[in-house]
């Protein structure tokens, strides 16, 4: 600040001029962001109208909150919310999986072995859900590899295959998520483990702690701060299961348990052309998500003194 005060007026003006210049240079980007991120928000207005195709936005008939009432009074919403809560709940319940994997990886002493395992297990993170679907189909469809093997060994098998088995849907989707994301998710915990002071381990060893005790009393507390942040982020995205995974794995046999909120918003909008309902559902989701994010952020500030956003 003091340097600014001491500089001659001419220099101050030059600085101001640069400030204006930089702002003008940022303008195209600002316009771009407004055009692609803020203009769509006008579309929210449709949620308060009785949408008719072909009529301009502000000439649609205004119906107040009727669409919201219909969405939340409809017979499908209960099922959709149940599926959303179950999938997110299972996700949070199993969120320590990457930690367990990271701890195990860390216990592997051979550097080469560890590197190979780490490289290989992050591969599924890099492929699209469509490819995951293709692979799952190859293995778990009615005549997929798993059923072929079970049949050959005379073991019981589900004739529909896992992907058509409605009782297995939730667990199957949850485990698919971990297959894709566990290796990748472990990276951040491995980094946290690397940051733990090695003297702690040495001291514990001198005190006679065995490996399991060292893991439990040193490694686990060492990764907890990282975990708490990621858990709070998980909670703030509780309603966002994503669309892609559930769309590609959707089939009529399992539709009852696989239609989550993001899928439902798609189904209302593109599936049946009820733009007004779809947008009403989307707005509700955004509002609740923002509230959750605010709560998670406050919790993070209180617990760790770190802001999430």
């Amino acid at each position: 600040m003091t340097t600014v005060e001491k500089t001659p007026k001419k220099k101050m003006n030059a600085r101001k001029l640069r400030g204006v210049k930089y702002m003008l240079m940022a303008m195209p980007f600002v316009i771009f962001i407004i055009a692609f991120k803020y203009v769509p928000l006008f579309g929210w207005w449709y949620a308060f109208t009785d949408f008719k195709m072909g009529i301009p936005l502000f000439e649609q008939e205004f119906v107040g909150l009727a669409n919201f009432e219909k969405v939340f009074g409809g017979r499908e919403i209960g099922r959709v919310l149940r599926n959303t809560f179950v999938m997110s709940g299972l996700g949070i319940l199993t969120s320590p999986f990457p930690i367990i994997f990271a701890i195990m990886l860390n216990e592997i002493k051979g550097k080469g072995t560890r590197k190979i395992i780490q490289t290989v297990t992050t591969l599924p993170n890099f492929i699209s859900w469509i490819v995951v679907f293709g692979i799952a189909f190859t293995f778990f469809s009615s005549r997929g590899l798993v059923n072929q093997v079970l049949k050959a060994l005379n073991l019981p098998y589900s004739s529909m295959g896992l992907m058509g088995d409605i009782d297995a849907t939730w667990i199957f989707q949850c485990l698919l998520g971990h297959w894709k994301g566990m290796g990748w998710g472990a990276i951040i915990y491995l980094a946290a483990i690397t940051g733990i002071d090695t003297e702690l381990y040495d001291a514990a060893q001198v005190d006679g702690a065995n490996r399991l005790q060292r893991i439990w009393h040193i490694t686990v507390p060492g990764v907890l701060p990282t975990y708490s942040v990621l858990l709070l982020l998980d909670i703030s995205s509780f309603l966002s299961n994503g669309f892609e995974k559930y769309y590609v794995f959707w089939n009529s046999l399992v539709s009852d348990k696989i239609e989550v909120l993001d899928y439902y918003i798609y189904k209302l909008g593109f599936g049946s052309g009820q733009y007004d309902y779809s947008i009403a559902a989307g707005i509700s989701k955004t509002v609740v998500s923002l509230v959750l994010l605010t709560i998670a952020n406050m919790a993070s500030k209180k617990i760790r003194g770190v802001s999430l956003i």
Partner: protein
Amino acid sequence: MFALKRNNNKIKERTASDILVTIVTYTFCIVFAIMCVYPFYYVIIYSISDPKLTAAGIYLWPKGFNVTVYRQLFTQYDIGNSFIVSVARTAAGTALSVLCTAFLAFLMTRREMLYRKFIYRLIIVTMYVSGGLIPGYLTIKAYNLLDTFWVYIIPGAISAYNMILIKTFIEQLPESLEESAMLEGAGIKDLFFQIVMPLSKPIIATVAVYDAVGHWNSWTDNFFYVGKTSLQTLQLVLYNYLNNASHVAKMLQRYGDISGLRESMGETVVTADSIKMAAIVVTVFPILFVYPFAQKYFTKGIMMGAVKG
């Protein structure tokens, strides 16, 4: 000397529980690693096996050898064209997005900029609030971007998350470098292209790989915004192959008589399954090729993101 002694102690002090930890750790890690690799391996060996022999089941090694299916995929099916579309969108989309996002991030580090805080917030908010599916679609439609190649690369030209990553990185660069360049009369563009960009190589590489994988795997934009077959991306074509038995059957039928002729001439026919497998391989291959090299950058990127969080 000391290290050696400690190692000896470790071996001596091994208890039964320590050995159990080792066994469980290695077993789990190796099993999970196999679960991550084998599906890809299986798809590859299936696709290069002789289709006449695959019905009996393939487990560890390919049966026979036949790559007719790949030749046919690229010459007779819609894979060839969609491969080009996917490569084009990945190259153009990544270049555009990296350039725009990096330049905007650089501008945001200029403290003199007028309304800098306001512009920054305007960008950050887009990470948490978006119009949603239908409003987004209606906006794209209003801009006449439906059914164009541009819809793949323009809407994603600026990523708020990547902008934060790059901005954080640039802020860590020594300020003296920029100051001396400015004193020597370098304009903002020289500063960006000749000093900031070269110094920011690690983060630029990270973001570029993120973007490239994202573009390659993206299919919802194709699914929602583009109906033209000539503009279909590889991912969606793969999805059609996987999900639409009739799609593949039609393809087979169209070229069936040619294949029949070929068979009588001693060439093997392709089957619906071998087409699916080969299509998966074609879709995954570029990623298999890129990701081991990219991994170190990815790890860096995820860590920087975590530092922010």
